């Protein structure tokens, strides 16, 4: 199991579009991925689950992955959140 803490910097938080980007990236990894905010734990591969966390600017999240390619998954997703989804949004 691999974990990393990240802080959301984007003013817009994680609304529908960033959530869909996050989930799309998560789906590329075979491992189980969880996004944890406070006491709530969302499945990183489910849009509704991620949206349900109500992630806003300043939210502290834990990205957790378990299984094959867990390290890559955590790095990829935390980089995505920390960089404001910038690289994907620009594509």
């Amino acid at each position, binding site marked *: 199991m691999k974990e990393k803490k990240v802080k959301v910097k984007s003013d817009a938080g994680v609304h529908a579009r960033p959530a869909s980007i996050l989930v799309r990236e998560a789906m590329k990894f075979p491992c189980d991925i969880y996004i944890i905010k406070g*006491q709530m734990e*969302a*499945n990183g591969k*489910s849009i*509704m*689950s991620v*949206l349900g*966390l109500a992630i806003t600017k300043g939210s502290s999240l834990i990205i957790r992955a378990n299984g094959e390619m867990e390290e890559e998954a955590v790095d990829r997703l935390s980089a995505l959140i920390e960089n404001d989804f910038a690289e994907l949004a620009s594509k």
Partner: protein
Amino acid sequence: MKKQLRIRDILENTQKIDLQLTLITGREGIDKAITAIEINRPGLTLAGFFDYFAYDRIQIFGLGETAYIKQLSRERREEIYTKFFSYDIVCCVYTHNEYPDEVFIEYAKEHRVPTFVTQHPTTRFISLLTHIVEAAFAESVTIHGTLIDVFGIGILLIGKSGVGKSETALELIERGHRLIADDLVEIKKIDESLLMGSGSELIRHHMEIRGIGILNVRDIFGIRSVRNRKRIELVAELQEWDANTHYDRLGIEEQVYIILDIEVPYIIVPVRPGRNIPIIIETAALNQRLKKMGVFSAQELDKKIQEWIARENNNK
């Protein structure tokens, strides 16, 4: 983790229970944390008996307390209040719309103890308050799954992403059953045998169906297709059909799934093309209802067969 409940949280409770409270002191102290689940009627304390004074609980002044204080002299009241407020009181509530005397209000303001008046009678108020406080202190967990009310049985569908939980739920909704939450289910342990499931308020009654996107189930299927919370009585895990796995063919032994230390009846439903999962879930719900009423199909058939065998053996 030790949970905390502020007085403010009681006023703005998520169950939308109206306690009909009026704050008669300042807002100071309203963010104080309540640590005790119970309440206290301070009758004995006001009479001067301070042993075992549960000062850390919410203090409820009913008609009895108010009437008792009214017949005390001002000097006696000051004496009692001085001692009363020397404890770290969390919050005081006067019921039956009875206002405290001005001496009390003075002391409460000075010690920053939020004091409220409610329209409710004491017993009613206590029962409403207990409801809010217990729910706030209940252990909880979030589970990735879909919660649906099928024939009155709360069924939690679990399984890997993409196995078809949401699609199964969609067909169940279409068949007249009710969705509580999709994907993210918040589960609270209300008491030692009761698990209550609900959805995150923000995304309540929305679903994501691959190929369509996000749907508002309530808008599409109407108010009859949703409910806000439901007791969880059965866990059904959808699993990709695997020829090498042994699936339960009898259902004689009941399997359980453990959530927050509570055992919930559990079934595994193998999924493969051509199997109508919603109908299997519906049937599982009906079977669960039968079991609740004391009828256990698998065990009864087995008993019948065993009796028949015994009879045949006797006839030989």
